[in-house]
């Protein structure tokens, strides 16, 4: 969905959680006098956002799909064995689902390991860059003041 922040705003904007990934998208503000460091930070955040979005949307959709498949296959197995009864249970209990949860978790374990490692790395880098940007801005402000006095 296209979102346009108000013109006078000089901040990023954060949206509602995405339907598939549950992550909130951020619309990044591009200042006129963006430094190269600020640009690098913004691009890293943008790229991380897209990477995260892709991972979690895929993860959640895969989970839903595999859960559906599991339920269908279990229910089918049950109806074959017992014969179709009216008012038969059409859902599985939490205990029956437990097998699926366990299987899903172990199947995706390696995938999560890679994701975790990358996520920690990105998170640290982004935060570090944010710190550098703040310091850069403070430094620029301090440098501007004596110049103004002299001119």
């Amino acid at each position, binding site marked *: 969905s296209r*979102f346009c*922040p108000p013109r006078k*705003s000089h*901040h*990023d*904007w*954060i*949206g*509602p*959680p995405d*339907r598939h*990934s*549950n*992550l*909130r998208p*951020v*619309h990044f503000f591009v200042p006129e006098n963006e430094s190269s460091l600020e640009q690098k930070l913004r691009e890293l955040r943008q790229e991380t956002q897209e990477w*995260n979005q892709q991972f*979690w949307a895929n*993860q*959640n959709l895969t*989970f839903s799909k595999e859960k559906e498949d599991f*339920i269908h296959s279990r229910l089918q197995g049950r109806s074959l064995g017992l014969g179709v009864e009216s008012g038969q*249970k*059409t*859902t*599985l*209990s*939490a*205990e029956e*689902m*437990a097998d*699926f*949860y*366990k299987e*899903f*978790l*172990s199947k*995706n*374990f390696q*995938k*999560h*390991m890679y*994701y*975790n490692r990358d*996520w*920690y790395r990105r*998170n640290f880098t*982004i*935060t570090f860059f*944010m*710190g550098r940007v*703040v310091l850069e801005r403070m430094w620029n402000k301090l440098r501007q003041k004596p110049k103004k006095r002299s001119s």
Partner: protein
Amino acid sequence: MAAFPHSFSSRLLTGWVGGCVWYLERRALLESPHKFMHLFRNVNKQWITFQHFNFLKRMYVTQVNRILNQQVKPKPKPVASPFLEKTSSDEAKAEIDEMRPLSPLSPSLSIKPDEKQLIELESASTIEGSIDVGKETKEEKQWKEMKVHLDDLPGILARLSKIKLTALVVSTTSAGFALAPGPFDWPCFLLTSLGTGLASCAANSINQFFEVPFDSNMNRTKNRPLVRGQISPLLAVSFATCCAVPGVILLTWGVNPLTGALGLFNIFLYTCCYTPLKRMSIANTWVGAVVGAIPPVMGWTAATGGLDAGGLLLGGILYSWQFPHFNALSWGLREDYSRGGYCMMSVTHPGLCRRVALRHCLALVGLCVAAPVLDVTTWAFPVVSLPINLYISYLGFRFYKDADRKSSRKLFFCSLWHLPLLLLLMLTCKQRPGEEGDKENAQS
């Protein structure tokens, strides 16, 4: 500093009505839609109201309070007003309490397409105080400027630092301090509490900093400040540093170096061991139990200056308590854990999960007997604590046998009141310095 939902215990305290609403709110979050048929068989009235609750897609809401069993009329179309200003405050309150969990789950609610109209409505309509959750639901659907308002900052930081959990942690530290032998030193007590509180805030903030995408995907944690973009990660880390440094310094120099070292170690254990380990191995639960056990030990070392068997016993009691508490809680979160990639016993080793919970319930009985042996309490303590220890062990046994949602919730709820009561009993049965001497005189 254990990453357990403080919100559960705090909400319980607001009373049974609140408890009912919360309980059912949790159920709505945790139940998959397929479960309702299974639950429908349950004769218990309370469960049947869940079904109406889960049917919120049809916009029907049932008052969850047992006393008032009314059915509110279906929600009006959002064009009219999503805020139900005309309904009674009771009905509106019930609906709001129940609206909140469902809106993120069912984006197909008709509010979404009419966003523009809603924006206009929002500026025009007057919003009652009791329906601010309705407003929150709508806000979730809107874009928000990522600008920190100073008025909101205290609230945001309180949620970032899990202030309620921190308060519970500090209370266990206070219990440790009070139970330690020796005269009660008020300045030392206050410094210890403050230092531990700051350390806990720091650890909780870093934990949230690490877990943003995972928290987004779990119902329990999706409203945290970093997830909602209310503050930046940089600010969260800065805040954590501003809590950790004074906290540890306060403990090291204001109290004693041992307490300071334990505080620093606990921050490290929670943020750098427990948090990443949650996604790698079930061992995280044991590490988390140690994290929960250290604060009362810190209270003890603060009071006595050293670590002895009594302090370790107190830590042991908290350590054992963590298992029935957390294992019971995690039983209902298996779906979220599985999807989010968390390695928890309840998902990977369900039998072990229940066995460990029961084992540690029984261990609590043994530890309470050890208390008078180590001169922490009098012999009255194991006697008076036996009923509650047997009760939690019974619930642990039921959980072990039945392995269902009902028994897990019973055990979890029990653990919430069991610990404060146990600590209180310990305090009342504390071994006074004179008594030991009297006993010896009586014997000779």
